[in-house]
């Protein structure tokens, strides 16, 4: 090998080693999460075009929809691609991320943050939970751009190590297994929340008024609708059971109108909670999340209402 060629090869190896080590150290140091919601790394391990039902949204979705039960009852492969309090603009980019490898028949969007989310930017922990493990791509860069206000604050999102390098003081076996053995949390993004002391109060609230949806939420809801339409996918809007006030109900009414205009199915289980036969002492984790038993009842009703079987 002549010297020039050897040099090129060595520099190439150096650059590859640098990228490899950067990727591995990022994975090693990144916060691994608490088992709530999707482990994005696990989503990437799903076989291409293997997901039939893609669930998008926040914790209201990942605690209410049981993908294992969907599979058991219908044979359809479902996956909750959701993270806690996920704002709609991240949900939109999650949808785009999913479409890179998946071609789901049904896309279910849970509406909690569309309705109740306020403000143009979410808390850092919420952003981190959603963005940290996304693969570097234009979509990730765009997710960061719309999720983080100040340019200088975006840099630690592009390079996780800037944020998490001090975790060298607390690294454990899971960190190493994730980075070097590719171990991920294989739970289809679902968590069966335990029963708590919480008792869901009887809800008699009715509201036919409409209220404005926060502008950034509305913008990204429309983008999600368009993206589904562009890809010929059936988008289903769902509001899982939750304790709602008049304001939220009025916003939900606004979305119902949008759905009606665009001919999209919207399943409202806030106003139709009685159809679920929920046990208010056992089936709720808190005012917005179902427990494991609640999610099973909910999932069965969802399958029925969507005629998935």
């Amino acid at each position, binding site marked *: 090998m002549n010297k020039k060629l050897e*040099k090129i090869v*060595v*520099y190439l190896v*150096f650059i590859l*080693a*640098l990228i490899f*080590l950067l990727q591995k*150290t990022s994975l090693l*140091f990144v916060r691994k999460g608490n088992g709530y919601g999707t482990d994005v790394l696990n989503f990437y391990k799903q076989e291409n075009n293997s997901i039939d039902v893609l669930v998008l949204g926040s914790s209201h979705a990942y605690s209410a929809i049981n993908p294992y039960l969907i599979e058991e009852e219908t044979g359809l492969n479902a996956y909750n691609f959701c993270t806690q309090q996920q704002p709609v603009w991240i949900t939109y980019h999650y949808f785009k991320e999913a479409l890179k490898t998946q071609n789901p028949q049904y896309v279910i969007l849970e509406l909690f943050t569309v309705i109740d989310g306020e403000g143009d930017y979410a808390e850092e922990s919420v952003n981190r939970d959603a963005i940290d493990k996304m693969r570097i791509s234009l979509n990730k860069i765009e997710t960061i751009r719309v999720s983080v206000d100040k340019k*200088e*604050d975006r*840099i*630690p999102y592009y390079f996780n*190590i*800037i*944020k998490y*390098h*001090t975790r*060298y*003081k607390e690294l454990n076996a899971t960190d190493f297994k994730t980075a070097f053995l590719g171990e991920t949390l294989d739970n289809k993004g679902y968590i069966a929340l335990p029963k708590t002391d919480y008792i869901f109060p009887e809800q008699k609230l009715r509201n036919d008024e409409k209220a404005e949806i926060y502008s950034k939420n509305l913008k990204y809801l429309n983008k999600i609708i368009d993206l589904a339409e562009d890809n010929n996918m059936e988008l289903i809007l769902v509001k899982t059971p939750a304790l709602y006030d008049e304001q939220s109900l009025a916003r939900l009414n606004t979305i119902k109108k949008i759905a009606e205009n665009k001919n999209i199915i919207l399943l409202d289980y806030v106003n139709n909670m009685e159809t679920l036969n929920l046990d208010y002492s056992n089936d709720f984790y808190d005012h917005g999340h179902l427990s494991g038993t609640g999610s099973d009842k909910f999932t069965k009703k969802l399958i029925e209402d969507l005629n998935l079987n």
Partner: protein
Amino acid sequence: MVFNSFPFLIFFTIVLFLYYIIPLKYRYLVLLSASYFFYGYSNLRHVLLLLSVTLISFVSGKAISASQSKKHQKNIVILSASLLIFLLLCFKYQSFVISNVNYIFKANITIEKIIVPLGISFFILQAISYPIDIYRGDVKEEKNFLRFALFVSFFPQILSGPISKSKEMLPQFKKHHKYESNNILDGLLIVLYGLFKKVVIADLLAVGVDNVFNNLLDFVGIPLIVAVFLYSLQIYFDFSSYSNIAYGCGKMLGFELNKNFDVPYFADSIKNFWSRWHISLSTWFRDYLYFPLGGNRKGMTRSYLNLIIVFLVSALWHGGAWTYIVWGGLHALYQITERQFEFHFKNKFLNILKTYLLISFAWIFFRARTINDALYVITNMFKIDFIGIRSQLKSIGWDKFDLIILALSVLIVFTLDFLNYKKEMSSKITNLNYKFKLLIYLILIFTTLIFGHYGPGFDKADFIYLGY
């Protein structure tokens, strides 16, 4: 824009790229534009000051060259130096002068606070020296104003040096620097080493040192001694890291900047220390103040007086504060005592230790916010407080991981320093196989990334010498 920042990384990458793709004869224009952008990035108005300083020095140089009369030339040198010193006084020493006038005359004069332009003390010294160099015949007049403007504003050195002489730098700006991969490899290695020293060591040391010096009354005895020694390390790692990065950036662009540090804590006398610490500043004061004052050619008393003047001016150069003046005074006293009483041990190690202890003691004044703070440290550092020591050491702010990292990294750098002290290490490193250099890159990059003191949740510490 500071070296240890993301904007600088982007800025330098773009400059490097543009610099090497532009035809050779226009490359200095890339550097000039980059330097003015770099300087104006934090405060656009200060660019006017930089331009004025450049103009004064350039026009003076031109006038000196044009004049045949030595007396006339000397007057121009005095005039330009006075003008430049006046500018320095206006921007840097206003509040010091006014606070002292208020104190002495019990007056209550107030003025609007001026933001001291970054690097003012550094680029003004360079600007002062140019007319003197022409007057002395050390350098010929630079006819190209833009090239001269680059000499005053060259971005790797404008904020904190090393202070260069016109005869060293102007010829380099004229030279056509072709791309050489070795310059990039070596320069980058030095930059990464500098960043390691700054981000891993100096900024971690700063946490402990700041915790003690900003809350002095909470500490008595050993923690104060620890803080004093740690500050001596902090300032060394901080400033030498800046010099490394400046040198490395210069090298990547094909320039050889002055060496600013030469293992200073291995000095075996105070005089020796000043030939190893902030070398570009000490040589500046030697060449443009000490020698013109007569140096040591006019008898012992006069040479001591000259030493005192040089150290006091040097102290004031660091900033308008009595703490600096005492620090400079102490160094003058050390040198005079050393010379007068030939205060040396036979054992070299003892001399190194003695020198280090004296220097560390003087640093107390350099670091303390006031003379009273410094006196508190001195009067309380030898008190014994066994009961409070555990909680005091804890409140320095480091955990066991920080201590391990500090101990290991300081050991590594001092081992390299020691090897450098024994033999010329830098040339050996330069001659290393490029594959080995690439391996060192990876080690430096990842140790800095992982163990560095940076990112969200950290107060980013500026380079100490950016304040001067």
